[in-house]
Structures are given as C-alpha cells and as structure tokens.
C-alpha cells in the first residue's frame, strides 16, 4: 500500500472510563461512605446516598483466550449488568447491585472453573509478567509459574487466613517487571554472559552496551579480528542488563539462571513508609513445568508468617518486628554472606547498634 493511502491514526490517547462504568458507580463517584466484607472475594460498598454495590472478585489465568473472555463477559451480562473491571493483578471484578445475584454469580463462575477470592487478608493472585510465552529476554516463564503457585495457594486465595493481605510477584529477569511484593520470586543469574563474538558487531551498538553495565565490567575488544566486547568476570554481577541491547551477551542459561526469593516489598504507606523487598533465599532451581522448589519456599515463608505474625502485619513488618535472626530460625533457611548488601547505600542496612535479640 502506498503511504498516501495509509490511514492516519486518531491520537485519542487514554479513553474516558466513565462511559464504561456501572451507573451506580457513576452516580456515587467520590461519594462512597464505607465498605464491609460479607465473605471472601466479596466487597459491599455503601454510598452516602444509601445505594450499595457488591464486588465479586475472580481470579483468572490472565492469558485469556477469546472463548474464556466470552465466558466471563456472559457471566457479566447475566449477573452484573454488563459492567466489570480488572485489578492490577489481573483479577476480574463483577459489579452487582442486586444482592440476590451475588451467590448465583459465584456459583456460575466457579462452575466454569474460575476462583472467587483475593480480598482482604488473603493471598491474592500473583502479579504476572510475560516470560517464555512472549518476552524477548526471559530467564523463566511467568504464566506457568503463576499457575503452579496459585494451584498450591488456592486455599489462601479463597480464605482469610493471613495476618494481612499478601501480594506475591514474579519476575522473569533482573529488570524485575513484576515489581515489589510481600514475597517475590525473581530470576537470579549466577554466571556472566557467554558472548557470541561473531554476532556482536552485527547487532550491537557497542558504546551503548558498555554504558548499560551498572558496574563498568564491559569494554570493547577485538576478538578473532572482529570488533566485539569483553566482560571482566571478576567485576560482573550477572545482572543481565547488557542482554536486552545486545542479544549476543547471552545471560540466560538453562542451568545457571536460578530463582531467588525476596520478602517485605510493600507499596502501602499504612503504618510504615513503603518498603523494598529483601533477599531471603537464592540458588533455587528454575524448574518447569511446576517449579516445586520455589513453591516450597514460598509456602514455608507463608506458613511461618501465618503462625507468627500479628494481625495487620505485612510480611516485611513481621520480619522487622521479630528480627532477621528469628526469621532464619523460624524458616530454617540458611543465612549467607550474600544476604549482606554491598550495593550503594548498603551501610544503612547494617546493624550499628546493640539491638540484638537473645
């Protein structure tokens, strides 16, 4: 097609959400008074006007085929006046104004194989990256990890068993698209990239790759008479930052790309300021199709948290209160030299006091 025949885009940007919003929500926008939690997976919001709306929260596979999408929309048509939204963890929320429709909706959606829950002090669905299904730099899969973990944590999604809400995240590389979580399962590479020297000069802009390295471990080099790059393997922190701009810097390795588990990431300002997650376990095998070792560690941490944390404590607050020595005692996980930070600002994470629990 000639350029002149091409259709110019309408740069409409982010669309107006009010046109897709339940009329009860439009009417009571900014005028909600309080909410109650009738049962797991269900919220009841009451407006100043006295109007009520029920939310039924349903876990999905996130990678939705059109058949599944149509199943969900027909549930929305039958029980929820045709209005829904998705949470940032890819749960679908149905909005119901008629309380009598809540239980039939739950029954219908469960009959189709979906799971109701994820509200209040439950383990909600994992935040979900792309992984092997579609990413160009992944060290592991995402959808398979989420499916495997949620199969194991299904009762924690469907019930209010936890001291507070638990957000679990996964990331398939060390860019960490999955974000911060109470528990994070992230790829951790353990060896420097293997370099395909024959390809570097064909596909990489070498100065950009050099600049991308956080520890200045990459420098230009001539290899076999061709311009390439070399890595100072003593300096290399195996982060994989060089791989996206330069695929011949092959960081992903079937054996040496491992998983690490982190705890205590929390985006809320409630009680304390937001916190970043901290390392608890590494060298966990990247073991498809069900990643049993990683799931085992997540379940272990959740078990200890459930038994030992106080009401409203998030995972990170619990560890903060009981101290790291007790965390390692309770979980039985090893404490190693790798747990001690040496990145910028690391001194702030050292104990410069006599605050020690005996």
């Amino acid at each position: 097609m000639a350029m002149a025949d091409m259709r110019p885009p309408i740069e409409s940007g982010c669309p107006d959400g009010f046109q897709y919003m339940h009329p009860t929500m439009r009417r009571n926008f900014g005028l909600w008074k309080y909410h109650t939690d009738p049962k797991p997976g269900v919220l009841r919001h009451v407006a100043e006007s006295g109007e009520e709306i029920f939310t039924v929260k349903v876990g999905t596979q996130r990678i939705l085929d059109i058949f599944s999408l149509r199943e969900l929309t027909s549930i929305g048509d039958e029980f929820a006046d045709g209005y829904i939204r998705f949470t940032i963890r890819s749960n679908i929320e149905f909005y119901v104004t008629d309380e009598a429709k809540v239980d039939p909706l739950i029954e219908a959606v469960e009959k189709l194989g979906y799971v109701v829950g994820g509200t209040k002090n439950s383990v909600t669905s994992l935040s979900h990256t792309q992984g092997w299904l579609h990413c160009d730099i992944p060290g592991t899969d995402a959808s398979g990890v989420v499916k495997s973990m949620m199969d194991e944590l299904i009762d924690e999604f469907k019930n209010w068993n936890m001291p507070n809400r638990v957000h679990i995240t996964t990331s398939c590389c060390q860019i960490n698209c999955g974000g911060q979580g109470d528990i994070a399962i992230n790829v951790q590479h353990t060896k420097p990239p293997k370099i395909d020297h024959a390809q570097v000069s064909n596909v990489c802009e070498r100065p950009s790759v050099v600049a991308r390295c956080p520890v200045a471990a990459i420098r230009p080099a001539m290899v076999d008479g061709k311009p390439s790059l070399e890595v100072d393997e003593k300096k290399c922190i195996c982060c994989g930052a060089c791989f996206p701009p330069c695929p011949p810097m092959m960081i992903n390795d079937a054996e040496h790309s491992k998983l690490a588990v982190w705890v205590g990431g929390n985006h809320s300002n409630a009680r304390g300021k937001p916190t970043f997650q901290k390392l608890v376990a590494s060298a966990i095998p990247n073991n498809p199709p069900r990643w049993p070792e990683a799931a085992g560690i997540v379940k272990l941490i959740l078990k200890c948290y459930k038994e030992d944390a106080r009401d409203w404590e998030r995972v990170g607050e619990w560890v903060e209160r009981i101290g790291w020595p007790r965390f390692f005692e309770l979980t039985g996980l090893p404490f190693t030299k790798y747990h001690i930070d040496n990145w910028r600002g690391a001194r702030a994470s050292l104990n410069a006091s006599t605050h020690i629990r005996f």
Partner: protein
Amino acid sequence: MAAKKIYETPMLDELESGPWPSFITGIKALRDNHENQFIADVTSSLLGQLEHSYETRKGYWKGGTVSVFGYGGGVIPRFSEVADAFPESKEFHTMRIQPTPGNYYTTDMLNQLGASWEKYGSGLQTFHGQTGNIMFIGTTTDGTQKFFDDINDYGWDMGGAGPCVRTAMSCVGAARCEMSNTNEHAAQRWLVNNFTDDVHRPALPYKFKFKISGCPNDCQNAIERADFAVIGTWRDDMRVDQAEFKKYVEAKGRQYIIDNVITRCPTQALALNDDDTIAVDNRNCVRCMHCINVMPKALRTGLDKGVTILIGGKRTLKIGDLMGTVVVPFRKLDTREDYEEMVELAEEIIDFWAENGLEHERCGEMIERIGLVNFLEGIDVEVDPNMVSSTRQSSYVRMDGWDDEAIKWFERKAEA
C-alpha cells in the same frame, strides 16, 4: 476446525491440572476449536515453541522494528528464533493498547475488542500487562495495522513502548472506594493525554510513567513504580463517627482496639478515651491510612482533599530500586487551573529530564546523580522540609549562601 499440525506438549500438559484456571487449556481450545485457521495454526505453533522453552529453559523470541503508520512505538515486535521448527508463529507481535483509568469496561466493549482481535490476531489477550496496557498477544506485521485501524476507529489508542511517556495507570478509585481523595480518572487523562505525542513517538532518555492512587494505601504501586506518582490525600481533620467507633470497641473489645489501632499508629496520634471514644491528634497524623483501613465505618479521610506528588520511582535497572521523592507535599486538584498547573509541572520535569538525563537514565536516577536540589532548581520548585526524612548528616558541603537562603525561606513563609 483444528490446527494443521499439533505438537506434543507433555510439560505444558502438566499445567492443565489443579484448581487455578489454566492458560494452557485456553490456548489449546483455540488450537482445537477455533474456526479461524490462522488462530488454530498460530496457537498450535505457539504451544510447540513454549514446550521447547520449557524443555530447554530458554526463551526464543527476538525483537525488531514493527510499527503502525504514523507512530514510532506501541507494537512489541516478536520474531521467533526457532521458526524453522514452529513456522506458524514466526511473527507473533503484541499490541499495547491504553485502557481506561482504573481498567473499567462494559462486557459489550470487551466483546467488541475481542472480536476485532479474533479477526486480525491470535485470539489471545491479557488484561493487563505490567505496563498497564491491554496486551493483544500475537499477530503478523500485516495484522498490526489492520487491528489498530479497526479499534482506533472506535476509541482505542496505542500505549507506549521504548523511551517515551508510557501508558498510565490508576487504582479502582473514587468510582468504588471510600478511601479515594481525588478524581483519578481526570488526573490520569489530564496528564497522559497531554503527552500523546511523547507516548507514540519515543524520543526521551528512557521510559517515563504516570501512576495515580486515590489514597496513601497506594494500590497502584505508584511511589515505587512511577516516575510521576500522584497520591490522593487530605489536609484537614479525619472524620470520626464516635458512635460507630464505640460499636467497634463493643464488638471487638478494648484489647483488640489498643493492639490493632491505637498502638499501630506510626506517630502515636491516637488515644482510646475512658468512655470508649477515640481522640485523634490530627496535627501529627501522617495520613498513613491504617486506622481507617481497620475501621472504615468509624473513621474516614478528611474533606479538604488534594494530592501529594512524588517523583523518581523506578525498578531495579540500572542503579537499584528507587522510591519516588516528595516534590509537591500537597496541592488541590479541583479546578481546571489545578489540573493545568499539574500538567505544567509534568512538562517542566519531562523537559528538564529530556535535556539533562543520560541515555537510558530514568528521571529518579538523574535526580540521584545530580542531587535533589539541582533538580528542584531545574524545574523551579522551592525546597520544603516535607521532601526529606531527615536533614543532612554530612558537614562536607559549601554553605556560604546560607543567609540568602534563610531570607528566601522567611519570605516564602510570609507569602503563604
């Protein structure tokens, strides 16, 4: 209609058991039952390649350059590196499409979007990716333009990809949450739709993200994930319904209220009175939300609402994770002028960063490199003690401008 070729997928088959919905079962349904031959074949080939990834523990997609006419970004090009073995998914590009603030849809609109994608793509979609976009996963280069032309006609536009202003995100917000202190929809659309050119034509040092949360619970993860985080808050007293509070005390017991509400206040701004009412020291309340979260019927946010703006949050690459830093402690967001001023601040910040940021340097990393004060001077914002957790600890700094700065402080105080 079934796919022309079916690949063995013993590892993926294991992901069909268990109680959580299975994406593998869904993709297989497309392979086996979809009447469109392209969808049946491309999903079959996708399963073959994914099984190969599971066996070898490696990914096999590479990027490239695919775009729709008039734009420079928004398509995530994917070309298979193992197309010889799995030829039908040789091209499998994703379309990033901007959702509404808070991700609201009618079922009719979802069905319409799904039908368009079924016509030009694989029949696989995701609500939503970590970028906040609707991800329509898997089409050919030809399909990207046709799909975009179709949905663009009924109101949907591409999201950001690459070094540009990215698709923005908001929490559920005032539409269904009593904690909300702002109109997240208006804030998101005012901000991101001012930068549509910067969304569609990547020309910035790196990505720039707007995220909006209606209250400090920050359900949208704005502080730790957005270059420009807008968080709803209030500055008058929180509302207390003492009768409801007493009911909580009666129902839960004094011990529970002391352990879970009074002593959990980070600034000790709460007290339980002898008559089972609550006393609130509003001047020392930091709007953390905890007590309101525990008893939403008794305690509510105040009525003099506005937003706090934090700049520079980002994830790990390259210098480590950074939280956003307070740059605007409080501003009203009610009138057209209020929104316009917020957009002007965003423009100042993006312009300064575009000029001073290094290649692939996020705004927060630039602030880390040049210091907050240089950044504030660059965007013409005055210093404020709300921007720091503590004052400086190091004496290694040249301070011969002190008297002038002190005069400025008193002048600003007098103006306020």
